[in-house]
């Protein structure tokens, strides 16, 4: 019945959705501010809170294994891990607020936070975007 319809509309719609997604990703990348703290959680509970400005290297003991976290020149990444997939290493370096590295096998997450001063993100608004 609807065989007459050409694929043109479909292609336009899908391309539009993909383009919007790319724009959103780019906007997030450009506008999300750098964080100032690295929060390490194991099984959802906070284990460490480290400043992103101080270079460190530490071993996180997760469930059934460990991950080596490195903080250097304002970026955080997992350098080494004994998990089977090594996804956390492949995730690469993070520095922007809300970015995270997840090691599912060890139940470890490393997240960039805006820093102490509380959970209230509206407190120190040195951001040029109204993020709602």
């Amino acid at each position, binding site marked *: 019945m*609807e065989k007459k319809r050409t694929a043109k509309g479909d292609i336009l*719609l*899908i391309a539009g959705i993909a383009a919007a997604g790319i724009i959103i990703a780019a906007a997030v990348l450009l506008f999300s501010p750098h964080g100032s703290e690295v929060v390490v959680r194991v099984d959802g509970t906070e284990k460490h809170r480290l400043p992103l400005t101080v270079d460190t290297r530490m071993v996180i003991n997760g469930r059934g294994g460990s991950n080596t976290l490195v903080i250097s020149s304002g970026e955080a990444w997992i350098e080494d891990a004994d998990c089977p997939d090594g996804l956390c290493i492949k995730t690469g370096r993070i520095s922007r607020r809300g970015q995270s590295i997840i090691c599912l096998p060890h139940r470890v997450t490393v997240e960039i936070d805006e820093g102490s001063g509380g959970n209230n993100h509206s407190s120190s608004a040195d951001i040029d975007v109204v993020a709602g």
Partner: protein
Amino acid sequence: MKRNGSAAKKAAVYGMLAAMAIVLSWLESQIPAFFAFPGMKLGLTNIVVLIALYKLGPKSAMGLNILRIAAVSLLFGGFSAFLYSLAGGMLSSVIMILLKKTGRFGIVAVSIAGGVSHNIGQIIVAMIVMNTAAIGWYIAVLWFSGLASGALIGLLGSLLVRRLPDSLFRGGLRDAG
């Protein structure tokens, strides 16, 4: 239009679709945490919504979706899960119904739009519930995961819509209009 015995058939067909949706929800919840991001889903139940939308009409699709979300939340989830699914499900249903109504798009494209809008609906609720600024990454990631899963589900759904016999849905079952 004959409507003899259609009430029983209606109950049977709707019941079958609702059961299918619930089973698919369960199946999806059994898939191990392969998706690293919370909220990233395959959206298997959207197959049923697509079938309902294309075989029965928008009202039925919407109704089945609400029923499915309520049942699944009662069975497997809590209240917050209900809120998330409801927001995602309603937004994606409305978007898909509107897109289908234009008659310009095929099932796959409609399903992709549904997948993305489902995730966006969830994020909107998450923004309200969690009051967090770090949600931008979520939007970007879930936008594309919605696109991918929507495409997959759309392909599966279009196969089913094409192959399920229309006789199954005949007899006053379709939405009026």
